[in-house]
């Protein structure tokens, strides 16, 4: 129960603390709207409750005076709400224009997001990096995202970092993202996209410029070839079995982009779009029977033996 009240307190705090410029504008407008809504609700609640109590039949003669209207009142409660929504219309225009900052037609996006059924493909065209599900951004900078979909409609949403933008097949969207301070921000796909819509989470890691540059440098590097024998076995299997048909690992012949890019998969904190912590045990669980872990995901069950699972998982976890 205490947790319940904390949640409500947190809800109101959230309106006053924003982690990015885009979210600040939205929260600020939301707060203004909340005040208007509260005032109107209070008026209606007063009219209803006070009216019902004051004119309770016990206190009144059976047949009251038969009044059927009042023109001035009608005009009042038509015009006042009209003025209120007009004000909010102009606020809407202002904030909408501010959040949808213009960009040049041929401007190269900083980040390309391609939504897939139940995972996010994330690319940095300026650096030539491809990663998945965990977006790294430098704090304090405004970045242009190009959002699109590879299959059905999805929606990009990190509540602390601003607006929601749909990823629509056949329709490219642009959206700005920024974070005031370094930190981890959680988000999720918010347009229903099929069986595992619930497990299409987003994680945004905002870093200082230096840390971000370091991360970029690291991601650009080709992961070193595995050294121990189990992982080497896994690397061989990755190329010889069907893995390479869908996944890519830089520095190897595998370069398909149907599933997530696995070049630095070991360096990510979660697997399966935020569903499981990234560790050897979970990777084994997943490879043993993907459909049991994430029912409806597009990775089939390859009926791998225990040794095969072990080798592959060890190899993948070493790709840091």
């Amino acid at each position, binding site marked *: 129960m205490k947790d319940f009240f904390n949640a409500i307190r947190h809800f109101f705090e959230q309106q006053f603390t924003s982690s990015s410029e885009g979210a600040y504008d939205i929260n600020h407008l939301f707060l203004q709207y909340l005040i208007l809504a509260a005032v109107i609700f209070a008026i*209606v609640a007063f*009219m209803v409750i006070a009216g019902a109590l004051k004119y309770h039949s016990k206190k009144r003669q059976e047949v*009251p005076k038969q009044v059927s209207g009042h023109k001035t009142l009608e005009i009042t409660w038509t015009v006042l709400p009209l003025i209120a929504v007009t004000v909010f219309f102009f606020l809407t225009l202002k904030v909408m224009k501010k959040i949808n900052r213009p960009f040049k037609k041929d401007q190269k996006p900083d980040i390309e997001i391609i939504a897939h059924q139940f995972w996010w493909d994330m690319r940095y065209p300026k650096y030539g990096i491809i990663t998945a599900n965990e977006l790294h951004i430098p704090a304090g900078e405004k970045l242009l995202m190009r959002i699109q979909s590879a*299959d*059905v409609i999805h929606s990009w949403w990190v509540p602390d970092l601003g607006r929601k933008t*749909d990823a629509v097949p056949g329709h490219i969207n642009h959206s700005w993202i920024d974070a005031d301070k370094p930190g981890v921000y959680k988000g999720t796909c918010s347009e*229903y996209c099929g069986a595992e819509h619930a497990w299409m989470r987003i994680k945004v890691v905002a870093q200082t410029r230096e840390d971000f540059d370091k991360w970029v440098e690291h991601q650009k590097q080709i992961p070193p070839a595995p050294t121990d024998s189990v992982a080497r076995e896994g690397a061989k299997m990755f190329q010889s079995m069907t893995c390479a048909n869908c996944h890519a690992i830089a520095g190897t012949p595998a370069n398909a982009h149907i599933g997530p890019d696995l070049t630095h998969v070991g360096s990510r904190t979660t697997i399966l779009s935020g569903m499981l912590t990234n560790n050897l045990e979970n990777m084994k669980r997943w490879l043993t029977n993907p459909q049991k872990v994430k029912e409806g995901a597009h990775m089939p069950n390859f009926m791998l033996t225990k040794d095969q699972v072990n080798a592959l998982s060890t190899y993948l976890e070493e790709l840091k």
Partner: protein
Amino acid sequence: MNLRIHIPEATEPLPSIRTGNGLLQWISSVDHKQIGIMYLWTAMIFFVIGFVEAMMMRIQLARPENSFLSPEAYNQIFSMHGTTMIFLVLTPIAIGFATYFIPLMIGANEMAFPRLNAFSFWIFLLGGIILYFSYFAGGAPNVGWFSYAPLSEKYYNFTPGVDYWALSILLMGIGTIGAALNFIVTTLTMRAKGMAINQLPLFVWMIFVNAFLILSAFPVLNAGLVMILLDRQLDAHFFTTSTGGSAILWQHVFWVFGHPEVYILALPAFGIVSEVIPVFSRKPIFGYEFIAASSVAIVLLSFGVWAHHMFAVGLGTTFGAFFAATSMLIAVPTGVKIFNWAATMWGGSVHYKTAMLFALALLIDFTIGGLEGVGFAIVPVDWRLTDTYFVVAHIHYVFIGAALTGGFAGAYYWFPKITGRMLSEKLGKWHFWIFFIGFNCTFFVFHFLGMLGMPRRVFTYPDLPYLGSLNMFSTISAGVFGISFVLFFINIFWSLRHGKKAGDNPWQAFTMEWLTTSPPQLKSYEKVPLVKSRRPVWDLDHPEDPDWKRNQKPKTADHDQE
């Protein structure tokens, strides 16, 4: 207008399951009262199914990462819940009351097209049965009540669920269109002598304008459904993006229907409370003209607001601005209604009957729902709230807070007329308070869930701060909410046998349906009085102070023309 249609005089007494070949008579009946009752039973039966589905979802969501339902089962259940509640519960409640009471309220003995009336009901019911048959035919629809393409296309969705979904809604749409046609023609041609179009009871007026809304909205949906069936069955490419179709086109087509649909379900409830509040305040409705005209404004505006469901699609600032403006504008006539209903009580003599309590609950809960609607019109705020649990709260505050609450007001108000017996007021008050508290506790926390980042239509959620406790609170409240419906059903079955005898006009109500016996005979009226005002029964009961005399005073000339 003298387009009266001749209906053969009925000689049999009102048939029922107890008399003679009862069940067959119900099935073959074209009597508007029986058809109305069948609509209401349909609504109640499907409500039980829809509510069980809702409870299964609430159990699954009670704890983070719960495994009560599989993702696929959950996705089918939420799709069926939405489709059932909208098309098979709220729609037949509205149409059922309208079918039963429109002829009675305008002093007619039958609908304009009795056979069309029966056809509308049965094709509608067939649609409902086909929807549920999908469970046995390979899987229920699993793409939500608006089946966004391309997820609903064959490539991503190879069970026949969506085909059954489209087919069933197509049939229900045909039934609804038939009913709407019937309402329009009945209202236009079969009014009692003297009843001018601006003297219609507000319930009839709302159904009348609503029928035009149905006639314009449902054909669009049906066209869209045919398109998706063509896509799925004959490999057409309307909405398959990979072969040149447009995913956004489906959204336009669906919401051009989908948004008016909200008003299609809300307006009948508005009509019911426009009857209930004045009767239990012993006063005429405040601002009849304004309530009537604001309904027309809502009908017209509702066709220009659909794309506020699509603000996150990325269709540009100008596009957003237009639909923001219209969506905000539609709040104004809706507000006018709320203020007029509340003002009706002022200076009246308010009787706290269960029907009245439900009407007042509508004013409170629908105000919340309506104000949320304004929030969704503010585009940047919509970018935050849309597709989250906030929108789930909104849809329930509109559909339960207005449509279902209004339906209960109607049930308590008209049950005596339909059955001849009163519903128990004592059980009714328990029903009301548990309903009101249960509803608000279940759904108000959805606002917080949405703001905290919980998207809609997720079969589970990670254990993030607060999500678990808020969801648990909602699930427990939903259980309480469920008890209220049990009480309602007990009340019905108990009162059908043991309820107090109602008499013709137990509420001292004002409109014509209260002139005939409770329940009405197969032929409702032998004769009806000359209608001179909006409250013919008031005029008869209060010969010393009839409405027409009072209204006459300022402009005498006006009355002479009639």
